[in-house]
């Protein structure tokens, strides 16, 4: 039993932290968020570097030119991406799309494209009725429209997935030429957002393929875990900024961090963060080791991370005082990134409901 990172994992973290500090310093990030259209250009510009770092091939299987590493490595890397407020379709491309495309066959070229950094994927969820039509009837709907698609302005491909029925799901793979993308302004200024429309006849036809619900649930669980990893990084950075400010800012002749009201607030943030880290590490390992309760572990990670990051990023604003409410200070960026990722996770209610079912209704987990 060993919770510590091995040497290869520790090296991945070190290289990511050092690399991101150079490739994406705060000044670069700031230079691309005003006006908001700049962030999509930054995402595209960073992608070659991401591929050179080897990260695009992280989850791709070795025969396709990938590294075939686990979710443990993916969450560790996401932690660093979150810390740097990384901009780009990393999770949707290198975790979700890779998991989904590897769950079927016929997508070797696309997977090679992802590994080599030529393919960037934005993802959206199909409405049940569209999924049903696609899966059941094999017919394409007359149009597909999605209002908020993360990273759409920087994507080369789109992957749409959805549950059709009890144990059947469906996925749709679309090239950029087949859709219309309207760039939208995201609440998170470090995020490129777009509305996406598809109608038949524009560009190549979509590729539609079936999945089992279990497969889709596993792909989504891995993606949620990666986002949880990113939340850990965002929270670490926010907490660090609060600690730094509280140590420097003086009122009543003392650093405000010497007051217990501030200390206890930040101590509780630290506890929540470390508990969430435990949950994410454990869940990622459980998925990699195909442990029996891996999906439960992933839900526990979501249930630990979502409230944690809300409190940590909110407290960072509070501890910064008036400065915390300004555009110039960083806490707003942490807060908005946390909110965006939490929304992508669908909040924690679903995770909590599933945990309750697993723990209270059959009781098997508790009796171990």
């Amino acid at each position, binding site marked *: 039993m060993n919770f510590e990172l091995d040497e290869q994992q520790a090296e991945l973290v070190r290289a990511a932290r050092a690399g991101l500090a150079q490739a994406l310093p705060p000044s670069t990030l700031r230079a691309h968020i005003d006006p908001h259209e700049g962030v999509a250009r930054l995402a595209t510009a960073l992608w070659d570097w991401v591929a050179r770092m080897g990260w695009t091939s992280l989850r791709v299987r070795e025969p396709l030119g990938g590294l075939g590493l686990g979710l443990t490595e993916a969450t560790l890397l996401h932690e660093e991406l979150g810390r740097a407020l990384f901009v780009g379709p990393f999770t949707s491309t290198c975790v979700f799309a890779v998991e989904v495309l590897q769950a079927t066959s016929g997508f070797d070229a696309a997977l090679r494209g992802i590994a080599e950094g030529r393919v960037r994927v934005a993802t959206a969820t199909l409405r049940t009725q569209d999924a049903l039509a696609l899966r059941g009837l094999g017919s394409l709907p007359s149009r597909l429209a999605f209002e908020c698609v993360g990273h759409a302005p920087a994507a080369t491909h789109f992957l749409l997935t959805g549950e059709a029925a009890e144990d059947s799901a469906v996925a749709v793979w679309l090239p950029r030429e087949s859709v219309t993308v309207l760039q939208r302004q995201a609440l998170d200024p470090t995020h490129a957002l777009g509305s996406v429309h598809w109608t038949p006849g524009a560009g190549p036809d979509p590729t539609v393929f079936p999945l089992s619900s279990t497969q889709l649930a596993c792909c989504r669980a891995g993606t949620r875990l990666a986002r949880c990893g990113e939340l850990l990084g965002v929270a670490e950075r926010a907490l660090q900024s609060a600690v730094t400010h509280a140590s420097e800012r003086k009122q009543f002749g003392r650093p405000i961090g010497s007051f217990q009201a*501030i200390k*206890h607030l930040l101590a509780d943030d630290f506890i929540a963060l470390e508990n969430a880290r435990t949950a994410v590490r454990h869940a990622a390992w459980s998925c990699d*080791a195909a442990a029996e309760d891996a999906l439960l572990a992933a839900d526990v990670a979501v249930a630990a991370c979502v409230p944690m990051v809300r409190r940590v990023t909110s407290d960072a604003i509070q501890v910064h005082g008036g400065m915390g409410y300004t555009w110039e200070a960083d806490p707003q960026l942490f807060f908005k990134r946390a909110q965006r990722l939490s929304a992508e996770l669908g909040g924690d209610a679903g995770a909590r409901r599933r945990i309750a079912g697993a723990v209270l209704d059959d009781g098997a987990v508790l009796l171990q």
Partner: protein
Amino acid sequence: MNLRFSPEDEAFRQQVRHWLRDNLREFGFAEGDWRARREAPAVFRWERHLARSGWTGLSWPREYGGRALPLVRQVIFLEEYAAADAPQLYNSMAHGILAPTLIHWGTEAQKRRFLPPILSNEERWCQGYSEPGAGSDLAALATRAVRVSDARGDRYVVNGQKVWTSLAHLADWCFLLVRTDAAVPRHQGISFLLMDMKSKGVTVRPLRQMTGESEFNEVFLDDVEIPVANRVGEENQGWDIAMTAANHERGTFFIPAIAALRRELRDLVALARERDALKDALVRDRLTQAFIDVRLMLLTAYRTVSLLMQGQPPGAEASFTKLVWSETRQRMTELAVELLGEQAQLHWEDAGFGAPARWQREQLWARAQTILAATSQIHRNIIAERALGLPR
């Protein structure tokens, strides 16, 4: 990273589980009879039985009678012990705090004298730290020890008062912090002494707790003589020694308590089911939170154990183990008492022998747990200053 226990560890777990099941039954501890498992004379016999059966000193070096097992085995033993609802040990201060301290700081003579009767549970220990004027601010302690050397020997003469001394009325010995130099900065004038509770001048007065029981005490010390040979470490080095001891406490001391929470959670869910409360969405969510808290607490303890097994000091996450445990336990017992409905009005001693009486008692005892071994507020200060580096 690998969170699986090895097949050898799993075999050890089975061995412990079977031994506990057979021996608890043989010892007359009926399943679910939690009151019998708290009776001091029976627990003393059980503690000696544990020792004779080789279940003490699991991680001690062999030269002092230990089994030199890796820490993970000790953790497995503690988990199984808690899962079996085996009696809470009276001599846990000796095993959890004093023994590791003696192994680290003690002279060879002290180890030879004091470790074997701890191992066999023939001598029970209490911890003499807190004083009426030194609670959270432990370094303010004022119990004075004056060194005297004459024909009768080299000794300290100790005067003062200790308080909240758990199990002092049942202890044979006490590890004691005293002031040996009042002229230097306060952390530098403290020494760590081993005191025979039968010494002349020691008076123990039990304090009655809000549960109605008396487990902790006031200890009055009037001209108590303690041989200088019973001092651990150098004179005035006591603070450092107490802090190393506290590190042992941070590392693994609370693992049994956390493991016990798992069983308590199971009991809590059973209570909710029995009271037909599992369909209540709010009760469900509170139970779900308790499940998450307990699971993450145990996994976080594994993180600490992983570091310790690699010979590293416990990480920052170890500093909040006790804090999170005590506050989670309060929330769990509060929910349990709510679920008791009308029965929540009964005093636990009049509530029969089943689960309701136990929850009644535990909800009161849980109030002590956010105070003992440093209050929750002190723990938050420690985390803020040591883990986050905020200014004092």
